[in-house]
């Protein structure tokens, strides 16, 4: 069995005889030569990914002003950075929004602007101390004017990610992009065959201290990423790198409409082919990587899994979801993932980059990605809804409805069929309008037929969001047979919030 050490490989880089291939080339080589043959033939496999990584940001050290300031709050181009650190250190997070431009511009764009050499306006305030008397600061800088600009990303490079689709009737704006109603499209992320962590899925060569390609600079893995979940092949890495060395092409602020901002980060990890196991792992193809299609129409932690797909199916551009052919599109750039794997390959071939072995490997087992511990019961619609609801039969008149509303002293009157199914809703306002227009006969003419409803078991928070989105003040609560079992109003929710 062939084996080699990282020292062997680095010696070959130094003398120019190293053989590097990308993860796309490796399956063919292993198929032809076998894993042992591939160890003899190939020294390093390069990987790459380029996509939105929300858990990204930058530590920025501005240098001291005179008189000095201990920044209590600081904004870069109106985007606030965290200053709970020493005087002139700040952390700019990628998803922080501009206070003047909203979702159009955020922390990710500030980081892009700095790396691209553009000037950035800084505004800081402070309470003033004996050692830091200054209370206000306004200046404009480029990345060359400040001391450290260190990208530090707590969670990057997901091994794979879920596919998002939407079974609800409404267009959703998410971090997976716009999801059209009724499975109108599906979006996915991660590079599949080029995915850095999927090419070494037991992390034999990846961990603390691994030198990597980070957005055009030589950066490092500093540990497992937050939410690292090796059990489900959702491993992640924490990384850092010098922004002054980065390539602006691979540092790109992004806006997901209706969701917010993020940062496209480019990561390439070199996998040294030390033994046959590692060679075999890097022979993975898109067809070998499976992931779940989730319904983002359900705004809960556990979104329903609709099916499993491979990256090969996803990249074909079309997948079947419950009998419907659905167009897929990536949110990350495979074109640039390939460019990164290629660039890293070239760096190594030219002796500009030497891979390292980690001082501690990423944990492969025993890590559990826990859900949040929440205090107290989360109230559901059933807890706050009124159970006694007056309804009115379809076919009755506007006058009947007016009488029911005045007698009951409420504003919303669900309309039901003879089978007791919800068919519409009437509000006091509808009746006032009908009277003004002298349309006093049938309810059917004036009722709203497309009724927004709630489910008794759903959390109050999702019901509240529905009321807000539809700009309404009440919803009938129905069971699975469309029978009205209660009604929930914005007043009920306000009272609950007041009690909390």
């Amino acid at each position, binding site marked *: 069995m062939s084996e080699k050490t990282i020292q062997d490989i680095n010696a070959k880089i130094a003398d120019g005889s190293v053989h590097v291939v990308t993860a796309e080339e490796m399956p063919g080589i292993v198929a032809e030569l076998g894993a042992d043959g591939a160890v003899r033939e190939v020294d390093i496999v390069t990987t790459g990914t*380029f*996509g*939105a990584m929300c858990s990204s940001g930058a530590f920025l050290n501005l240098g001291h002003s005179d008189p000095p300031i201990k920044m209590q709050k600081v904004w870069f181009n109106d985007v606030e950075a965290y200053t709970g650190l020493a005087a002139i250190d700040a952390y700019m997070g990628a998803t922080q929004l501009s206070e003047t431009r909203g979702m159009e511009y955020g922390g990710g764009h500030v980081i892009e602007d700095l790396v691209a050499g553009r000037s950035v306006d800084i505004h800081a305030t402070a309470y003033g101390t004996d050692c830091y008397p200054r209370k206000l600061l306004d200046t404009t800088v480029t990345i060359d004017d400040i001391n450290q600009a260190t990208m530090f990303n707590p969670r990057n490079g997901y091994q794979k990610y879920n596919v998002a689709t939407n079974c609800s009737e409404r267009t959703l704006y998410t971090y997976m*992009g*716009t999801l*059209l109603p009724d499975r*109108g*499209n*599906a*979006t996915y992320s991660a590079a599949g065959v080029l995915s850095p962590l999927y090419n070494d899925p037991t992390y034999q060569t990846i961990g603390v201290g691994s030198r990597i390609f980070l957005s055009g600079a030589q950066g490092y893995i500093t540990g497992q990423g937050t939410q690292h979940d090796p059990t489900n092949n959702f491993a992640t890495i924490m990384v850092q790198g010098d922004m002054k060395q980065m390539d602006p092409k691979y540092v*790109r602020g*992004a*806006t*997901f*409409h209706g969701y917010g901002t*993020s940062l*496209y980060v480019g990561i390439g990890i070199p996998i040294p082919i030390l033994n046959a196991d590692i060679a075999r792992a890097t022979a993975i193809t898109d067809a070998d990587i499976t992931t779940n299609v989730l319904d983002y129409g359900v705004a809960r932690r556990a979104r329903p899994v609709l099916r499993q797909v491979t990256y090969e199916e996803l990249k074909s*551009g079309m997948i079947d979801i419950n009998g419907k052919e659905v*167009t*897929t*599109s*990536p*949110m*990350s*750039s*495979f*074109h*640039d993932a*390939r460019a990164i794997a290629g660039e890293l390959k070239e760096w190594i071939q030219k002796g500009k980059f030497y891979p390292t072995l980690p001082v501690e490997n990423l944990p492969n087992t025993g890590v559990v990605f826990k859900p949040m511990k929440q205090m107290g019961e989360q109230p559901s619609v059933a807890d706050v809804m009124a159970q006694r609801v007056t309804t009115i039969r379809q076919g009755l008149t506007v006058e009947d409805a007016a009488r029911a509303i005045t007698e009951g002293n409420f504003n919303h009157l669900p309309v039901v069929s003879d089978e007791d199914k919800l068919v519409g809703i009437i509000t006091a306002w509808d009746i006032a309008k009908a009277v003004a227009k002298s349309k006093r006969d049938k309810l059917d003419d004036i009722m709203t037929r497309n009724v927004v409803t709630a489910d008794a078991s759903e959390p109050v928070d999702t019901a509240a969001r529905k009321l807000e989105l539809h700009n309404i003040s009440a919803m009938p609560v129905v069971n699975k047979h469309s029978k009205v079992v209660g009604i929930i109003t914005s007043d009920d929710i306000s009272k609950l919030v007041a009690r909390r």
Partner: protein
Amino acid sequence: MKFILHATTEITSKPLIAEVILETGTLLNIDRADVKSSGGEVVIDVDQDRYDIVTAAFKKRGVTITPLEQPIIKDDDECVNCGACISVCPTGVISFNDDWTVQMEIARCVQCGACVTMCPQGALMVGK
């Protein structure tokens, strides 16, 4: 060939498109129609050889015509070729080349703007 009709409120109530179809005996495909209180905007697709006759018939009725030469504009410096735009396009304008760069078959674009909203990089713009 596609063009945009701009009609003022005075004439949007008239059956303009039906009149032009009858007068010119040409099949028209309505790609997109947007009628508001301020007037109407309709994107129409017609065979190239009937373009002049049809647009003349519309102009005679007081409609302003703009040919839809570049319906959607992509800024190649901003585009990262992620392809997020592909799945929201209702007419299948956008696809990948073999090298995973994004290509657009703009003749099919109806300027709905879905891709503009989707693009995380702000690389797309509806052409005027």
